[in-house]
């Protein structure tokens, strides 16, 4: 049947870390996440594009090693491929790992129109590798293209030519037995002019970064350094934040004060600058933290960390692969939840998803910094403490839910110097996403909040305590009374975090300019925000993986337990620890005495 041009679908198929997402972005100007890690892409991404005038839907898929994949993302990808009955399969292979993709071509390419694109050719040739493209083309029976160094337009034209000339790979007969397919695929390798794989010896850098006694302390040192540069007073992060703050409160705030209308002045000063501005000023610090995460991933250090920490993770029923998801959690909880598809099975995935809300995402940073000034002069120590607490709680949750750890098998990504162009592109994209979120979801929320908190029901301008919002939310004031904040505005700020965690900082800024209660209350409130349910985006991501029932139940349990934890922390900080110790000592003494009495009784009876 003749396929209409507009129905053309191009599937990018290959092993993990082959360059499929990079190719997808090059063909479609898309923003698929790329990284130096086996398993970055965890879901199918589709985008319609024009390849030199030909309209095609390009689909980026998770990497697969075989059609009988082990992980959930592999199984999902294979199901997707098999469901696309008239799609064109573009196999993407790293030159140095070409032999690993041959069985995939042999399994999937026989009945389908396909072609092969080779990536990372330059790196491969530097190591003495050679591939004869014409010979390979003849051996496989499908067109082969090297993507190295091709500018976008030429790449699009070349892929269009592949689409028009692609054929079916050599028929292996009717025998689809997996073993037979693999044996036949190995025969193809004889047609390839000998290519050389990775060097057999580890380089000095690889030896160091594969040594736990060096790599683990290095990781913590780099983490502490990145926190220090980002949060310590007077350093880069603090300097940039202060500059943005001064621009909003000083320069723009000055204009706002000159507005004669009190309503408009209040709207600009509190609704816009006070709330949105107060969140935007944390952007430089968020970017610095994201930079650290990107460098870790892009350098290949993350792969080695996963290998070295597998022993620790297995003690809590996880494997080293969970390292990637947990580290991504420092960026965004929703994105981190999606990466859990790369884990071995649903049980492991569920446990990791339940741990992720306690990993402080970048959206919590503004509110941590707002609160930390109340209980720590140096925000660096405060934020470090809160992040460490979150990681600790996360591990405790994993330990509580512990089952058998899954087997750990992982191909290590190559060690490389992070590419500056890639880093700048990724960071720019993240900044753009943050500003879009700020200009839409967060701005809309604050406009809504400002209107409700600035007017009575008769639409007279008033203070927040007389406003519509006060009459709606007044009853919430008891929610945080046990931590010394009997105030509906604090409760409203906390609940606003369900929409986006940045809202909490903005709401506090809008109502108070800072946090008006004691250091103990500030710390307890921070603990609540650390441990409560993530934002709706993360809940939705969790629902996609676990179902809405589970996601909402988990969110409720997390919020209630976070509330109780904040009460306990406040109780302990404000001297309740002494009472708790006394009561615990009394209970333990009573139990021991009671036990002795029972033993004596038994002895007498005998």
């Amino acid at each position, binding site marked *: 049947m003749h396929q209409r041009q507009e129905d053309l679908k191009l599937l990018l198929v290959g092993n993990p870390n082959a360059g499929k997402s990079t190719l997808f972005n090059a063909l479609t100007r898309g923003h698929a996440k790329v990284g130096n890690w086996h398993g970055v892409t965890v879901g199918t991404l589709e985008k319609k594009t024009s390849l030199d005038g030909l309209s095609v839907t390009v689909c980026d898929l998770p990497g697969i090693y075989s059609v*009988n994949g*082990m992980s959930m993302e592999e199984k999902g990808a294979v199901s997707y491929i098999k469901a696309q009955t008239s799609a064109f399969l573009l196999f993407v292979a790293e030159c140095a790992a070409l032999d690993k993709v041959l069985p995939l071509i042999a399994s999937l390419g026989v009945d389908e129109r396909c072609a092969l694109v080779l990536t990372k050719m330059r790196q491969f040739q530097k190591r003495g590798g050679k591939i004869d493209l014409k010979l390979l083309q003849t051996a496989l029976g499908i067109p082969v293209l090297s993507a190295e160094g091709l500018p976008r337009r030429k790449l699009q034209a070349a892929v269009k030519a592949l689409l028009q000339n692609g054929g079916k790979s050599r028929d292996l007969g009717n025998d689809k037995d997996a073993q037979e397919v*693999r044996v036949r695929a190995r025969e193809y390798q004889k047609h390839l002019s000998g290519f050389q*794989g990775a060097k057999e010896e*580890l380089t000095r850098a690889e030896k160091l970064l594969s040594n736990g006694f060096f790599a683990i302390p290095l990781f913590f040192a780099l983490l502490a350094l990145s926190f220090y540069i980002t949060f310590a007073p007077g350093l880069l992060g603090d300097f940039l934040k202060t500059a943005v703050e001064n621009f909003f409160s000083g320069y723009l705030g000055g204009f706002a004060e000159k507005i004669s209308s009190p309503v408009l002045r209040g709207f600009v000063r509190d609704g816009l600058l006070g709330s949105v501005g107060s969140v935007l000023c944390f952007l430089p610090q968020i970017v610095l933290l994201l930079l650290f995460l990107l460098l870790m991933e892009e350098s290949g250090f993350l792969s080695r960390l996963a290998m070295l920490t597998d*022993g620790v993770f297995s003690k809590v029923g996880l494997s080293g692969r969970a390292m990637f998801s947990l580290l991504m959690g420092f960026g965004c909880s929703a994105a981190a939840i999606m990466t859990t598809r790369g884990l071995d099975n649903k049980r492991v995935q569920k446990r990791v998803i339940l741990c992720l809300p306690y990993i402080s995402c970048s959206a919590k940073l503004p509110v941590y910094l707002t609160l930390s000034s109340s209980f720590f002069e140096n925000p660096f120590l405060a934020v470090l403490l809160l992040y460490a607490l979150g990681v600790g709680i996360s591990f405790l949750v994993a330990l509580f839910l512990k089952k058998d750890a899954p*087997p750990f*098998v992982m*191909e*290590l990504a190559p060690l490389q110097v992070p590419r500056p162009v890639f880093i700048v592109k990724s960071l720019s994209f993240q900044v753009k996403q943050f500003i879009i979120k700020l200009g839409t979801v967060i701005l809309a929320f604050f406009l809504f909040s400002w209107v409700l908190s600035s007017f009575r029901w008769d639409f007279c301008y008033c203070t927040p305590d007389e406003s519509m919002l006060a009459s709606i939310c007044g009853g919430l004031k008891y929610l945080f009374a046990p931590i010394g904040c009997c105030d509906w505005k604090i409760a409203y700020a906390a609940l606003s975090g369900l929409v986006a965690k940045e809202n909490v900082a903005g709401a506090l800024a809008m109502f108070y300019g800072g946090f008006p209660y004691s250091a103990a209350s500030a710390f307890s409130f921070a603990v609540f925000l650390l441990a409560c349910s993530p934002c709706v985006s993360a809940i939705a991501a969790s629902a996609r993986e676990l179902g809405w029932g589970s996601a909402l139940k988990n969110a409720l349990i997390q919020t209630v337990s976070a509330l109780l934890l904040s009460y306990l922390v406040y109780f302990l900080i404000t001297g309740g620890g002494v009472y708790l110790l006394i009561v615990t000592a009394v209970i333990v003494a009573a139990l021991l005495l009671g036990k002795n009495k029972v033993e004596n009784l038994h002895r007498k009876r005998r």
Partner: protein
Amino acid sequence: MNITDLTEGDRCLVDTVSCPADLQERLFSLHIRSGEQIKLLKRSFFRKTFLVLAGGSKIALGKEVAACISVKKI
């Protein structure tokens, strides 16, 4: 003997891989299969993970997985 018995730098031939089918398939895809030559590059501290060179790629294996792969030293 299996991979956990090797010392760093040892080359060997894979004899058998005794593990569940899906794990065996994954190991096969990564060139850890009967008759293939592999080399132990590194053991992590406390011998919890093993880094091997197989089919030109560096593969990290957990202890339980490494114990399933019986080998013959070359």
